[in-house]
């Protein structure tokens, strides 16, 4: 029998339903807040500890020898940029290419193998990657370099980008591909100009995620880029990086260096956020009416 609104038990039931509904909504909101809180906490803490130390000198000077006050992380900022550029040049094309293969051609055993390998690579500790690159490149070249640092970080970018690309390409409805093929567009062209273009928003997000992740990595750079107190713009020389510099300063015994470490950490986060935002703005500028 359907309960009529007048029934006392019906009223209890509907009260219970409303209570649980509200409780669930509040729980979800609380969870969201809890996620943001650590992020905000870190950021605010960094701001408090590091903002004071950021000045023109910090941004334009190289480190002073230990014991001396002042100096900056200018070379580390530039060095990070250099290393990330190398990493991106290596990681983005290879990652996207791998993702394209997995989505469009990788249905068989080999595709499964590649997928598996990518997942494993994703889980390899960053320091292990650093040591591997050390053995494969640094020892051969007999010197540390921004190049090897970039290679290490690039390798770390590949699985994330490949999987994201694959996912986004698989989400492109097959009817779109068929429409392109039906027009007499060859398959490779369809993949690049139609499927990839349709999936581009997601692929770019994947690249951004990978970029943001490796931008802050320290361990792989320990044995590859190695760090440098002085300016270096050459790819085949040891190069300073913000993450390395923060690490070195933080474990040092000097207060001034601690102060600069906070500032460096803040700069690193700001740069990453700025890079991601810039890409978002640039890629959304060309959006048409009606495209999500």
């Amino acid at each position, binding site marked *: 029998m359907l309960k009529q609104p007048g029934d006392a038990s019906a009223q209890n039931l509907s009260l219970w339903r409303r209570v649980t509904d509200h409780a669930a909504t509040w729980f979800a909101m609380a969870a969201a807040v809890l996620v943001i809180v650590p992020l905000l906490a870190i950021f605010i803490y960094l701001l408090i500890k590091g903002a004071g130390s950021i000045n023109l000198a910090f941004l334009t000077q190289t480190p002073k020898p230990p014991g001396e006050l002042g100096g900056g992380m200018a070379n580390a900022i530039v060095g990070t940029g250099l290393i990330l550029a190398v990493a991106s040049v290596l990681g983005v094309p290879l990652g996207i290419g791998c993702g394209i293969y997995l989505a469009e051609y990788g249905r068989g055993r080999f595709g499964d193998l590649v997928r598996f390998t990518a997942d494993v690579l994703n889980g390899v500790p960053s320091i292990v990657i650093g040591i591997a690159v050390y053995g494969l490149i640094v020892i051969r070249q007999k010197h540390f370099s921004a190049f090897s640092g970039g290679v290490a970080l690039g390798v770390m970018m590949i699985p994330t980008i490949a999987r994201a690309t694959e996912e986004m390409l698989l989400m492109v409805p097959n009817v779109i591909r068929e429409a392109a093929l039906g027009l007499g567009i060859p398959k490779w062209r369809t993949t690049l100009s139609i499927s990839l273009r349709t999936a581009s928003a997601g692929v770019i997000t994947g690249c951004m995620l990978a970029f943001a992740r490796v931008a802050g990595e320290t361990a792989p750079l320990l044995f590859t880029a190695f760090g440098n107190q002085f300016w270096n713009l050459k790819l085949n020389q040891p190069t300073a990086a913000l993450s390395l510099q923060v690490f070195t300063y933080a474990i040092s015994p000097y207060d001034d260096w601690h102060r600069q470490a906070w500032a460096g950490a803040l700069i690193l986060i700001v740069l990453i956020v700025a890079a991601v935002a810039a890409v978002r703005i640039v890629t959304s500028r060309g959006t048409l009416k009606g*495209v999500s």
Partner: protein
Amino acid sequence: MGVGIEVRGLNAWYGNNLALKSIDMTVPANHVTAVIGPSGCGKSTFVRCLNRMHETIPEAHAEGEVKVGDIEVYGDGTDPVEVRRRIGMVFQKPNPFPTMSIYDNVAAGLRLNGFRNRKQLDELVERSLKLAALWDEVKDELHKQSGASLSGGQQQRLCIARSLAVEPEVLLMDEPASALDPISTSKIEELIFQLKQHYTVVIVTHNMQQAARVAEFTGFFLMGSLIEYDKTEKIFTTPADKRTEDYITGRFG
């Protein structure tokens, strides 16, 4: 101008499953031919064999003789991509390229085949949109609106314009109006009637009244075979085969 299609002994498989059994059919030029039949009878498969789209499905292949005009579609040296340029296809669900503007959608087939001349592209886009009876509705928003922001009926006409832009000789339509409301459907049907002056049209439809309205010739498929193929009036008033009659009177299917 359109060309005729000659099909002789066409067989098609999905893996080991024989889906089309030795089809013989002559599609006359500059006419509309409908292909009808119950679900799973092979009508869509048949049409997709005409422009070699069938083999894009994994483990699907086809054999036989298909001649479109003077092209041997399954000939030894024939490039499937080239075949698909000469034979256009419109699908059941309108599928404009989502990230592209209306102009870019129509021009896609041309641009991605290396066509670059801006002025000629403009002319061809306009001509195609006019042929598809969409020009007046979108001419002010060509570059600003995306293809996906149009209504269903407009999207389908956009897809038709896109197919026409590469100047095919034959237009294949796989249930082009089944996802549309009656008014859009009627516009598309009117369009098909106009298009046959320039093109040969083959339309797959599960809606018999639609086949009766737009097509001059109709082929009835059942379980992978072509049971009867004749003028539409004959099929719908005095069909020769009992199976055809049972289908169109709704006694099965």
